[in-house]
């Protein structure tokens, strides 16, 4: 029956169609299942890092110096602003009307007028506009257009969209309005009247409501601007507008222009295959017809011109700050991985001119493939020339070699060897050739003093200079050679950057030749104007346009990185008035301990952090690529999961913080945690636990508790910033006290640093006659920027060692008398402070009076440099203080080197005299002095500590035995007590009844340089008067004297008059502070 004549064949045909469908279904569902299942999995798989919180840094009491805190940033999504905010709607509607870009500033100025012009137009007017007829609104006249084509239609569509938005109608109301429009007479009514009708309001009432809405929207923006405290240039939008409002609108306009620029770049790249920034803007505009682009983005020709120039500027900036450095880093990494350096460099440089991957997938593929540069075809742009323009074939070969990597001689020269043919050297890429060898030399010469770098004028000169660099570097490697001459280059990176610039210049010159030459050959260069791109290229851009516009304008841009709480509340509370603005939560490293001036307490000690560097991120590209490829697998093995966890732990996030200095740098490994990783296989909105396929818990960084005490630190900081010179002091260097430079250290005898303050904390302008140190705000407790001998505070250490090891006895008397040849008291080349000398003097009195002649003679007891250095080593003056022990020391540096001149020769008698008095031959930091005096006070040399505990684990104290007899130490301690009681520090506020405890100490000052006459004039010192030298002055001590628990060191930098007294005053000021008083009252542990 069915096999009838007619139905039979038809059924067979339909059966065949059914078989075809089933076969295709088999192909898609069975054969391609893996592909589609992976795509599907990735569609709903949301993988993200869960950033750890960096550990906090607190003081010994637990008060936080710095921690990761929750913060917010303001994000701006231009698409939402354009579609939903009246300002964006009006600006874009006006742009659609006038067919050129209307700025947000202009729209803000005329918001209400323009908005009402739009909503008071009629649907029929829009229809006529769409049909190409003239349009006349209240303040706007648009002439008729002969051939409106699709452009008017799309503009009319945009206008309807924005009018809809401006009318503030619900979806249902808008549908009702459209329904109403089907009645012919309704099309004669204005949009406003129609809206009022569907909302059952009077037109007047609706108008008033809209007026209030437009006013509110501007008012809210003004309020936001005020809250953000955006300070702008003079002038405002109107007399009632604040300056900050104008700045905010300008910022929004910049974002808008950025979005439009990015869309245009995207479409240009899609159609031509290369970035528009590759071409000089004049060449770009004169060679390529970009009217299609302007029409698509809604620009007029001046705006197109702006775009070409801005795009070039941005591209060049990115080229220099990102692309070239990234290429150089990659080349370096590849050469470290075994690729010949020159091979790696040429490969990476040529990659800068190769086609850019279009997608992340392609990028990974390119990275993993590590394509050989020799196999690369024509560089980008050149590979497009044959069919770039409609009906014109440009000859890329006529332009010659566009980048050096195309040169067959270079290809042959580098083939399998790093040896470069000598014949290549005089060529313009000689520099590049030579650079290849630089990578292999593996030398660090960055520490050398450098001169400003000037690029070579031409290739030959470049070759000579690079060869010079090579010679210098070979010489510094220790091989035989001529005397070294330092090259002029700032550093290797700059030279390589210059090489990349050479490549770019050559590429652009050849591209210009190719574009202009070919057009000229056709006789079309003069007056012919730009040429149209090939139709298929325009089609590519057309297909891309909607996506590009949506994609680029939907990307959130940060408008403000740290808005205050008021701003956050404002944006959340009035969300509907701030379409396009949103709040993004984030974490921020916050310094919580601030002094009265808002400065972070112990800023230099706590240190700084930075984000991941380009080199770090590029160095991890391999890991990122591996992670991405594993994450794209639909099914993963247990080994894959282990690898994911390992990779997540290794890979830095772009905004991850790395400690660079201070404790942040020193304890970076402890403060860092391990990122978590979460991957959901379902939609995020569901957030059901069972839908999470991979979850790796984050591990927050450990908290670091310092030995510092916030109050003591603040007190020390306050004293070193604002030292007080007693009114009754006759020796006055008031200029120094107004501009103090120095440091105060307070520590326990066990080595815990309780306070380490440096002044100034903020850089100041150069301070005239001083040595300019006030220009630098940095830590002076662990560092010494200038010559920094200890002077007389060194004497107790000299004495203790001599008593124990060199046969000095407390009773030994040394002469301190006037030297006939010098007409002053002293010994050898060292003068003593006493005009007529101290006569025969023993240890106790020598310490009390700080007799230089005595200690010059003790210096003689040492006899040689070796013994002297043995003593310096015993008290730790030749090595770090211990704060970096157990750490890798990254980010925390101490100046602890013995000056190099002491190492280069033996000691003369003069050196011994000076060394005995702490002059010239030895320098120290305040913390080194604190450790040494702690050793004197306790009999054991502690390792100084800044870190009290990591997490819950206390950092144990450690000591080195001094190996000095208690008697020797006690003898020196007695002397130091006498210094405060009756000696050089007496009578200046350090007495027990003034401090509340007994202090033992030693004053000291060290000559640094002669006083100039101008300096003396500044200090009101008559010519020939005393003092004649500029000095650093010190005070060191321990307390309570009978049973020492704490040590204090004061260092005052470059002081003139009253040197030895000033440090005593500063010490007294500090020790009398309530914080120190409270400390002393603390029971001993």
């Amino acid at each position, binding site marked *: *029956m069915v096999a009838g004549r007619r*139905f039979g064949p038809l059924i067979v045909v339909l059966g065949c*169609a*059914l078989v075809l469908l089933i076969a295709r279904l088999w192909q898609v569902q069975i054969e391609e*299942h893996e*592909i589609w*299942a992976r795509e599907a999995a990735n569609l709903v798989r949301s993988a993200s890092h869960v950033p750890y919180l960096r550990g906090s840094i607190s003081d010994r009491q637990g008060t936080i110096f710095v921690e990761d805190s929750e913060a917010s940033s303001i994000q701006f999504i231009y698409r939402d602003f354009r579609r939903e905010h009246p300002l964006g709607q009006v600006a874009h509607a006006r742009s659609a009307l006038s067919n050129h870009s209307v700025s947000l500033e202009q729209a803000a100025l005329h918001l209400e007028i323009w908005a009402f012009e739009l909503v008071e137009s009629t649907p029929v007017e829009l229809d006529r506009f769409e049909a190409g007829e003239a349009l006349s609104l209240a303040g706007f006249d648009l002439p008729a257009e002969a051939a409106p084509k699709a452009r008017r239609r799309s503009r009319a569509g945009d206008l309807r969209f924005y009018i809809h938005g401006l009318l503030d109608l619900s979806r249902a109301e808008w549908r009702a309005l459209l329904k109403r429009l089907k009645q012919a007479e309704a099309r004669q009514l204005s949009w406003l009247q129609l809206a009022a009708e569907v909302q059952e309001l009077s037109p007047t009432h609706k108008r008033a409501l809209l007026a209030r809405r437009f006013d509110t929207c501007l008012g809210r923006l003004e309020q936001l601007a005020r809250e953000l405290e955006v300070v702008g240039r003079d002038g405002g939008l109107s007399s009632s507008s604040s300056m900050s409002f104008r700045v905010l609108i300008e910022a929004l306009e910049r974002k808008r222009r950025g979005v439009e620029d990015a869309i245009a770049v995207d479409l240009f790249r899609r159609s031509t295959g290369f970035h528009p920034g590759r071409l000089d803007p004049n060449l770009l505009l004169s060679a390529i017809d970009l009217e299609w682009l302007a029409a698509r983005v809604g620009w007029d020709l001046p705006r197109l011109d702006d775009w070409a120039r801005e795009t070039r500027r941005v591209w060049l900036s990115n080229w220099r700050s990102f692309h070239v450095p990234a290429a150089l880093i990659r080349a370096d990494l590849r050469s470290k991985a075994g690729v010949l350096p020159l091979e790696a460099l040429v490969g990476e440089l040529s990659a800068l001119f190769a086609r850019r991957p279009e997608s992340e997938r392609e990028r990974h593929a390119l990275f993993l493939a590590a394509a050989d540069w020799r196999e690369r075809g024509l560089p980008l742009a050149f590979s497009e020339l044959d069919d770039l323009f409609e009906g014109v074939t440009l000859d890329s070969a006529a332009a010659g070699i566009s980048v050096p990597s195309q040169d067959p001689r270079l290809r042959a020269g580098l083939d399998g060897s790093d040896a470069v043919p000598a014949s290549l050297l005089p060529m313009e890429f000689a520099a590049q050739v030579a650079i290849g060898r630089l990578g292999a030399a593996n030398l660090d010469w960055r520490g050398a003093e450098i001169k400003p770098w000037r690029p070579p004028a031409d290739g030959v000169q470049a070759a000579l200079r690079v060869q010079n660099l090579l010679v210098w570097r070979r010489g510094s490697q220790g091989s035989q050679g001529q005397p070294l001459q330092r090259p002029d280059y700032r550093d290797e990176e700059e030279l390589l950057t210059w090489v990349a610039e050479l490549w770019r210049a050559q590429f652009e010159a050849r591209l210009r030749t190719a574009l202009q030459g070919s057009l000229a050959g056709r006789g079309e260069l003069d007056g012919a104007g730009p040429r149209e791109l090939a139709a298929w290229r325009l089609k590519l851009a057309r*297909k891309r346009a909607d996506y590009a516009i949506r994609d680029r304008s939907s990307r959130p841009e940060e408008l403000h990185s740290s808005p205050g709480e008021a701003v956050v509340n404002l944006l959340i509370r009035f969300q509907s008035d701030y379409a396009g603005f949103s709040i993004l939560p984030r974490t921020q490293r916050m310094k919580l301990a601030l002094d009265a001036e808002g400065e972070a307490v112990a800023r230099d000690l706590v240190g700084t952090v930075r984000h991941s560097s380009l080199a770090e991120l590029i160095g991890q590209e391999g890991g990122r690529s591996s992670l991405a490829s594993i994450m794209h697998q639909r099914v993963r093995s247990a080994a894959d999961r282990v690898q994911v966890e390992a990779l997540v732990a290794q890979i830095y996030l772009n905004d991850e913080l790395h400690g660079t200095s201070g404790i942040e740098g020193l304890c970076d490994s402890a403060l860092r945690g391990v990122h978590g990783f979460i991957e959901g296989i379902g939609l995020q909105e569901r957030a059901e636990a069972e839908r999470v396929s991979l979850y790796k818990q984050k591990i927050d960084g450990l908290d670091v508790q310092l030995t510092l005490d916030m109050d003591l630190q603040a007190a020390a900081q306050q004293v070193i910033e604002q030292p007080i010179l007693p009114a009754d002091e006759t020796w006055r260097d008031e200029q120094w006290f107004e501009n103090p430079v120095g440091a105060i250290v307070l520590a326990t005898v066990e080595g815990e640093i309780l306070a380490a303050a440096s002044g100034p904390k903020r850089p100041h302008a150069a301070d005239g006659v001083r040595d300019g140190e006030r220009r630098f705000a940095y830590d002076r407790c662990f560092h010494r920027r200038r010559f920094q001998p200890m002077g007389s505070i060194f004497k107790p250490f000299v004495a203790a060692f001599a008593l124990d090891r060199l046969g000095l006895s407390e009773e030994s008397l040394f002469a301190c008398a006037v030297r006939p040849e010098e007409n002053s008291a002293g010994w050898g080349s060292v003068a003593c402070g006493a005009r007529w000398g101290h006569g025969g003097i023993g240890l106790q009195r020598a310490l009390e009076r700080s007799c230089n002649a005595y200690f010059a003679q003790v210096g003689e007891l040492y006899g040689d440099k070796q013994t002297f250095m043995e003593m310096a080593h015993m008290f730790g003056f030749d090595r770090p203080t211990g704060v970096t022990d157990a750490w890798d020391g990254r980010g925390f540096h101490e100046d602890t080197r013995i000056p190099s001149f002491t190492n280069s020769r033996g000691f003369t008698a003069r050196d011994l005299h000076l060394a005995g008095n702490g002059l010239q031959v030895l320098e120290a930091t305040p913390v080194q002095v604190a450790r040494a005096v702690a050793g004197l006070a306790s009999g054991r040399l502690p390792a100084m500590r800044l870190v009290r505990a990591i997490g819950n684990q206390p950092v144990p104290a450690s000591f080195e035995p001094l190996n000095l007899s208690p008697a020797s130490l006690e003898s020196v301690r007695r002397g130091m007590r006498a210094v405060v009681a009756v000696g050089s520090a007496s009578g200046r506020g350090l007495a027990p009844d003034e401090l509340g405890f007994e202090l033992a100490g030693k004053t000291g000052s060290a000559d640094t340089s002669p006083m100039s006459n101008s300096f003396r004039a500044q200090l009101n010192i008559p010519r020939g008067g005393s003092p004649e030298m500029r000095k650093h002055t010190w005070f060191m001590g321990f307390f309570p004297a009978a049973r020492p628990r704490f040590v204090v060191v004061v260092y005052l930098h470059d002081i003139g008059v009253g040197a030895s007294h000033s440090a005593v005053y500063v010490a007294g000021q500090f020790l009398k502070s309530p914080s120190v008083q409270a400390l002393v009252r603390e029971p001993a542990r």
Partner: protein
Amino acid sequence: MSLRNLMRGPVTHAYGRGASRAAWVRWHDMGWHTLLVGLMLVGVGLLFLYEMALADELQNRAGIRFGSHVKKLMVASPGLVLGLLARPSWLRRHAWALYAASIALLVAVALFGDERNNARRWIETPVFDVQPSEFAKLALILVLARVLHRRRLARASEWLAPGLCLALPMALVTLQPDLGTAMTMVPVALGMCYLAGARGTLLVSILLVGAGLGLGAWQGQIGVKDYQLERIDTWYESIAAPALIDGKQGPGFHAYHARLAPGNGGLFGTGLGQGIANETGILPERESDSVFAVIAEESGFVGGVAVLLLFGLLVLLLMAGAAEVRDRFVRLVVGGVAIYFAAHVFVHVAVNLGLLPMTGLTLPLISTGGSSLLVSLLALGLAVGLSANQEPSLDSDAFRRY
């Protein structure tokens, strides 16, 4: 007024005096098995629409509402009954009027239709939006059956009337613009011509010439709008999976997701409501133009083939029914309905699997959409009813075997 009385009026008017008793209805000859297959497909639609609506509700999306689908089905169900009760002679007599009415609707939609996405295809009604092009397809079947009833297409002049009958609705639908729907009229018309006696070689030649012209129009970009060209280009460039994946963010978005869903389903599917299409809601028109992609994803290759076989069975049963009919007009109508179902299913599935360029076409009996459901149920009812309700016919075909 009782339901019986309510029904009597219109039925009497439609089918003539005595229609209230529906005396011509031969219930025992009714193709219940065909009807059952059709209703099973409606059931499949209900099941998947329910799951889609549930997914949207779970995800808090303003999307598909099951109640709306049920409402449309309730409105469309009388169409099935009307089709079952239809009297062949009445239909034959009024075929031109029905055709004229459908043309009038197409003209009306061009003048007063609701414009959405730059197309005028719908007329709003309180229950659902009417899509006149759907009704035009059924009217075309009736009028072609009426025209071909006395023509065997042996002479060239006999092609004029059916050609014009096809051209008019096609032109109006193309103007909407809805080239996809217009093109589905072609296989229906050609199939009916074949059933009416046209030579197969001639029809194949027409098809080949049409394909050639289409290819020329595509390559020469003549008479094809930009968006249509773009769709064809996108389809051509993305027949293979990797190309489609690379272009998923552009115009290939719909095609990508329509292929991803069945591809993800594999052999046995992801389970009801567990597919990526439902979970993300990202597949455009998944309740109508891409409903097969959802079915294939959630029920797998097995389920997809089962649905295709059900449709195949439906078409086969309709063809078998038509082959047994002596009345040439009825045979052509039933055969036309079978081809209508076959053509719709083929285009819908082929589009979702990337065998044809993307176009919006519902899956009969399954997809939601008031017009689609109403017309497909009416067509099913007509085919089943007419097969059973044969009236005495002594035309020249009465004793021919087909």
